[in-house]
């Protein structure tokens, strides 16, 4: 026995080190599925360690532990978690997925066309993921990112990245051919529907272009108009929404269910900022957004929608809760919807872009209508709501930014990140920081603390370039 072992060859000894439990190669499609699910996880979860934008945009607030509502980003290293998640759990997997599919040969017809579609779809989701990072932090490592041989990647200028992303979207859209299939069930968002991906890509381009309106109007206009005029069209109804339908058993349940129901905790309640606003307008979406609470002091039930005081300590039982339908395990996650597209078109019309017909008012009405019906409201609800002079486009107070920003904020309920970004763009509605807040309402995230230690010099350069690594530093597109 001993003798045998002594003369065992080097090669054989090294064989011990092989991992027999995990694969050396996998399909690009399975990596794509993972990335897609992870992306939705980050955008949908209300977990205070990862996604606190429902709080920052004052749709929700906290009950007892109010740190995040008061903009404490440090304690839970929220910027680190967001950054790490998108770079490693999403973009890295998409990148690897793309590389594997690109190097796989599909010789038989229609293999090559399907492969092209797959790669284009991966590219579109990659662009979306990058856009989230840029919109959160500003300058980020991009051209030197995803290279493990360069441990100190330089940060690129946010605007440069953003414009490059739009170009990548252009190319990807051109490569899409709806006549052929793509990822099938490996794509849990559109199940490989190439036409739907094209609409998503166009809407994304519309949104990204519009975000640059204040900083690079020429480029913004061209981008918006090319998105609108693309033959595949935009997200044109709630059927085209970019969504992920969750499953009934863990770990594939909706993360809202995980945090609000499965956890047994009572950390979040709707914020008075949103609830009061909607109460005032008698918004038909109220029952779909929130539960009612008994406000009686006499014993006779008196149900009402009552939001927790934003940023303050709140008694869970005294306030409305997040509506039951939002808390079911299979509730769908959403990253882009029809209402959002129509709001963008309304904004485009106001900004004087060619949005392919329709006035700002029409698109505004379509947007609100799409939102109300998405949540379960009736056509009458839409009609009545739009008839309210505080809602009607012609009579609603303020300029177009106020009108659209205000309604979009309501429509983007439960979509904290987008609500936050649109609020930063429009500066409406006016949000006030709570009195115990650590800062004014953040308009960006500070860079991950880990970047200070792991990539210090580049971090410092980037911080200086954007005007300081602060939550109050306005990003390149956020001119006003």
């Amino acid at each position: 026995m001993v003798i045998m072992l002594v003369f065992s060859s080097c090669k054989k000894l090294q064989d011990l080190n092989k991992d027999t439990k995990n694969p050396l190669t996998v399909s690009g499609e399975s990596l794509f599925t993972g990335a897609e699910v992870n992306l939705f996880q980050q955008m949908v979860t209300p977990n205070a360690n990862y996604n606190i934008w429902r709080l920052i945009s004052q749709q929700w607030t906290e009950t007892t532990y109010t740190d995040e509502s008061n903009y404490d980003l440090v304690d839970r290293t929220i910027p680190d978690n967001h950054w790490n998640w998108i770079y490693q759990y999403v973009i890295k997997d998409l990148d690897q997925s793309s590389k594997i599919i690109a190097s796989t040969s599909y010789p038989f017809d229609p293999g090559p066309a399907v492969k092209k579609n797959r790669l284009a779809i991966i590219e579109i989701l990659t662009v979306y993921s990058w856009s989230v990072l840029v919109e959160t932090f500003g300058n980020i490592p991009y051209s030197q990112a995803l290279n493990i041989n360069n441990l100190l990647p330089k940060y690129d200028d946010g605007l440069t990245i953003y414009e490059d992303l739009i170009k990548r979207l252009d190319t990807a859209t051109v490569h899409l051919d709806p006549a052929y299939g793509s990822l099938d069930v490996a794509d849990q968002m559109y199940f490989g529907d190439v036409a739907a991906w094209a609409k998503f890509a166009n809407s994304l381009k519309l949104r990204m272009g519009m975000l640059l309106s204040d900083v690079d109007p020429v480029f913004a206009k061209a981008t918006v108009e090319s998105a609108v005029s693309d033959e595949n069209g935009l997200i044109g109804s709630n059927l085209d929404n970019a969504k992920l339908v969750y499953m009934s058993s863990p770990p594939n349940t909706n993360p809202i269910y995980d945090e609000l129901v499965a956890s047994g905790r009572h950390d979040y309640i709707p914020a008075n900022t949103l609830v009061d606003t909607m109460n005032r307008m008698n918004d038909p979406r109220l029952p779909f957004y929130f539960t009612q609470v008994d406000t009686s002091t006499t014993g006779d039930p008196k149900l009402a929608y009552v939001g927790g005081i934003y940023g303050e300590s709140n008694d869970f039982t005294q306030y409305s809760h997040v509506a039951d339908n939002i808390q079911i395990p299979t509730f769908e996650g959403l990253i882009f919807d029809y209402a959002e597209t129509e709001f963008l078109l309304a904004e485009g019309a106001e900004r004087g872009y060619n949005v392919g017909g329709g006035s700002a008012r029409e698109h505004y009405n379509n947007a609100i209508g799409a939102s109300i019906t998405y949540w379960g409201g009736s056509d009458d609800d839409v009609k009545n709501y739009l008839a309210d002079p505080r809602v009607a486009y012609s009579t609603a107070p303020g300029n177009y930014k106020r009108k659209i920003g205000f309604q979009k904020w309501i429509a983007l309920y439960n979509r904290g990140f987008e609500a936050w970004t649109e609020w930063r763009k429009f500066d409406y509605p006016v949000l006030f920081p709570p009195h115990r807040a650590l800062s004014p309402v953040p308009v960006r995230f500070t860079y991950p603390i880990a970047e200070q230690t792991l990539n210090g010099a580049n971090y410092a350069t980037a911080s200086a370039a954007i005007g300081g690594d602060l939550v109050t530093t306005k990003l390149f597109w956020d001119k006003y």
Partner: protein
Amino acid sequence: MRTFTILTALFFFVGIHAATAQTRIITGQVTSSEDKNPIPGVTVLLKGTRTGTSTNADGKFTLTLEGINITLVFSYVGMKTEEITLGESNVVNVILQPAMTTMKEVVVTALGIPREKKSLGYSTQEVSGDVVQKIKTDNFMNLLSGEVAGIQIRTTTNIGGSTNVLLRGIKSLEGNNQALFVIDGVPVSNENTNTLDQQDAGVGYDFGNAASDINPDDIESINVLKGAAATALYGSRAANGVIMITTKKGASRGDGDSKKNFHVTLNSGIKIGFVDKSTFPTYQQEYGAGYGHYYDGPGNYWYMRDLFGNGQLEQCVVTSEDASYGAPFDPNLMVYQWDAFNPLSPNYHKATPWVAAKNGPITLFKNPTTYMNSVSIENAFKAGNIRLSYTNYKQDGLLPNSQMIKNNVLLNGSWNVTDRVTVAGSANYIATQNQGRNETGYGTSSVLSLRQWYQTNVDLKEQKDAYFQTKQNMTWNWSDPTDLTPIFWDNYYWTQYENYETDGRNRFIGWASLDYKITNWLDIFGRMSVDMYDELQEERRAVGSIPSQFGIGYGIDGSLGRSYQGSGYLRRDITFSEYNYDIMANFNKEFLKVFSIKGVLGMNIRRTNQSRLVSATNGGLIVPEVYSLQNSAGPLPLPNELASKVGVNGYYASASLGWNSLVYLDLTLRCDQSSTLPVEHSVYFYPSVAGSFVFSNLIKEVKWISFGKVRLNYAVVGNGAPYNDLVDNYSLATPFGSPVTFVPEIKKNPDLRPEMTHSLEGGLEMKFFGKRLGFDFDLYQTNSIDQIVPLKVSAATGYFYKVINAGNIQNRGIELALNAIPVQTRSFKWNITVNWARNRNKVISLAEGVEDLQLGYFQGGVSINARVGQPYGVIEGTDYVYLNGQKVVDPATGYYEVTKNSDNVIGNINPDWTGGMRNTFTYKNWALSFMVDVSKGGDIFSLDMSYGLATGLYKETAYLNDLGNPVRNPVIYNTPGDPNSGYAPGSGGFINPGVKPDGSPNNIRASAENYGAFGYLYNPNRAFVYDATYVKLREIALSYTFPASLLKKTFITGITLSAVASNVWIIFKNLPYADPESGLGSGNLQGYSTSSLPSTRDFGFNLKFAF
């Protein structure tokens, strides 16, 4: 150091045969040549027999013998043995000479090679097995603290928890830094099987480390090899030093007469513990449940609820709130408390007085009891020896329903087959069963969370009764008086009785060896050994518990990022096996009477296999109280599997040259071939050289110097990589309608090289006045370079970590061991041993461009880091903002300003020095010893303080302020809003010492009205970093050995009775409310205290019988 020679001698009694006819009654006295004092306890034997006696306290003896030609042998440890042949006289007075200068003190060195201690060019320190036998503990390592210079023991207070054993500081950045354990030449695993999440202070249990399986009663002696030169022959895994354990063998006390060598020893011990109250919080008694006053009812402290549907609102305690920042207690105030909703409670639907709990959290703890019983049978024959021992250990823990049971059987023996061939073997089987370990870290089901989150109005005895009455989760922490589901915390008794874990390990350690003496100077030795165990860890969450992070998440053991599960069952099946095959040739020759050469040529083949399978239910249990995977409500998630195999082939040669017992030189060379490195780097060589010079042999005329030696050595030790660090694999996850895979967070590296530790050590050992005074002094420096680390990298690279060779950690230290006998008279002896060590470690470099490496990140926002230029293991977190050295206060609030960045160095986990002092007094048959153990300096972050002060639990949060008013009263100025207008009567608040941003002294009163003021919310992490110094009276032991004269007519050869108190008194510490030693478990991440069990003062009795 032979500390316990006198005790050993006292224990050594020999039976006496009854006198018959033709007898001679021989009497005499034994004295020492040094001080002319009588020596008690000298063994007096009739030559060639076990017949004899020992001297009494006056050095006198009486022997009744037969015959004419009588030769008596007088022996005493540390003295030369004398043989006296009697003439006519029946009186013998003997003077014994000290053996110091000539006695060969033999120690067991690496690979079990016995060496004369004076020939060693490196530092070793020996501890008698006695040290770990007096106190009955589940882990003998805990008892080594302070006994050896340079050993740093950190015991947790966890039930059956792991013990951190460091020798000469932390050397490896992210690898294992624990000393290697070797029993009779067989390396045994000392890994703990704690999860990644547990080690990062998340949810988990401390399953202890595997070296605790060693039965202390089987230990003959422990030899600690501290430096790389001492351990070079063991190769890479011994880079952190070696704890060498020699087990007891059947010992020959005559010349192979098996009747006389037959011995049975019975040992029985009991121990009971009492909570050391200084290691548990003192709760305030003035305010009850709540986070502040933003609820309903009077003072906004209450939940006003229509409990009876009569339209009337009742005043209820804010049951959902796990803080004590609520209403002031008032015995005249009647409110509905948690028990008003327990239908079986006498208080059901009744309001009760609003008062502080009579039975606070400390009520939870029981007095832990330990029973340990062992029996051993041994014999020595002409042809060999044999020993069999069995030990049963049972401990009932500090927490209800917690228990450890350990059964240990050891059989060993050797057989001289011929004059030239000896075979030997050992088989040790250990079965352990544990139940109800405390959950460590920051988790939803840790009962020790009551250090942080609790209501001071909750009576623990009532909680206990409520659980036993209803067998339901009758928590104090209802979601609402109208929603009787628990919200954050379960009833603690529910947790202990329903959500308990169990774990068990079956372990076999065995070896067989053959030694063939080819000539008188050459022998060949071969040995095969195995250490294997299987372990099952089972975790439970009963239906009705609050949801907690449970089941399988991600990370290599599936413990990270777990989802919330209301109930469930999880099991980890772990197997481990390590096989070692050794073959070596030993030669030993003297030339020309002055030269000696000792050499070893050998080979070691090691194969280590580890497997782990983790599986768990998903989405809860279908049927309550059935803990099985098939009882899963949802489809089972993918299990988590690991199968690691590591192989190392080592080849080594060593030569020891000696000249004239004056100069010695040791050379070793080892070559390893490791399975974990790429082929081209898998073979690596490393040498060591050690020299010693016994200078006292040159100055023999200086009488007061009995012994003097200088030594110097240099050694390099290489090390392979951990398993599977070369090739990238993908991770698989639960499918989402379609298969799901991921790129792992760690980028592997196919170009890894071996790590190298270089060490340089010099020492001086001297003895004076015979053996009355001696010291051993060491200086060393080690540099661990090219370490294999999963370097944390910017996630922008697409990974979180990249495995690289990098870094240089330096450890420099001083060690001093002192032994003195200040007083020695006829019947009294006082012996002092002192150990002291200082280790300074420093991170010289990390990877290129990397200044700071995060080793662990904890709840509360602090991390443990390695940072260039700093000691390994700095605590980083938020700090105060300083102006000219003064803390800056925010003038708007009166609270301290806190840095925005959290990479400030706010502490260092390494102690400045450690030391221990043992005093032993012997008087006649009595022996008393006590041990003081010190760890000076180092820091610890307390999450308990950070949270417990915030939630208003501790007495520091309720006091009369400088105005003489309750500090929690609102701050009221005479003119509202004007701090210069003076305070209205009754104004609360406190003034933080410091300055305002303009540099003027702070005069702004901070409000303590709502939760947080004293805790984490308004203070930086720095505020909760404490000096980890402790001075402990570890042990007081008193023993009495029955005089042989009393036993001589019985079959009993010895009885020793002892009373032992351990952890008697923490003489000094700075960490409030916890033992500074209480950590999460063994491992590199120390310096963090959360939710630990209090420590206990333990009192025990032992009875030892030998016949």
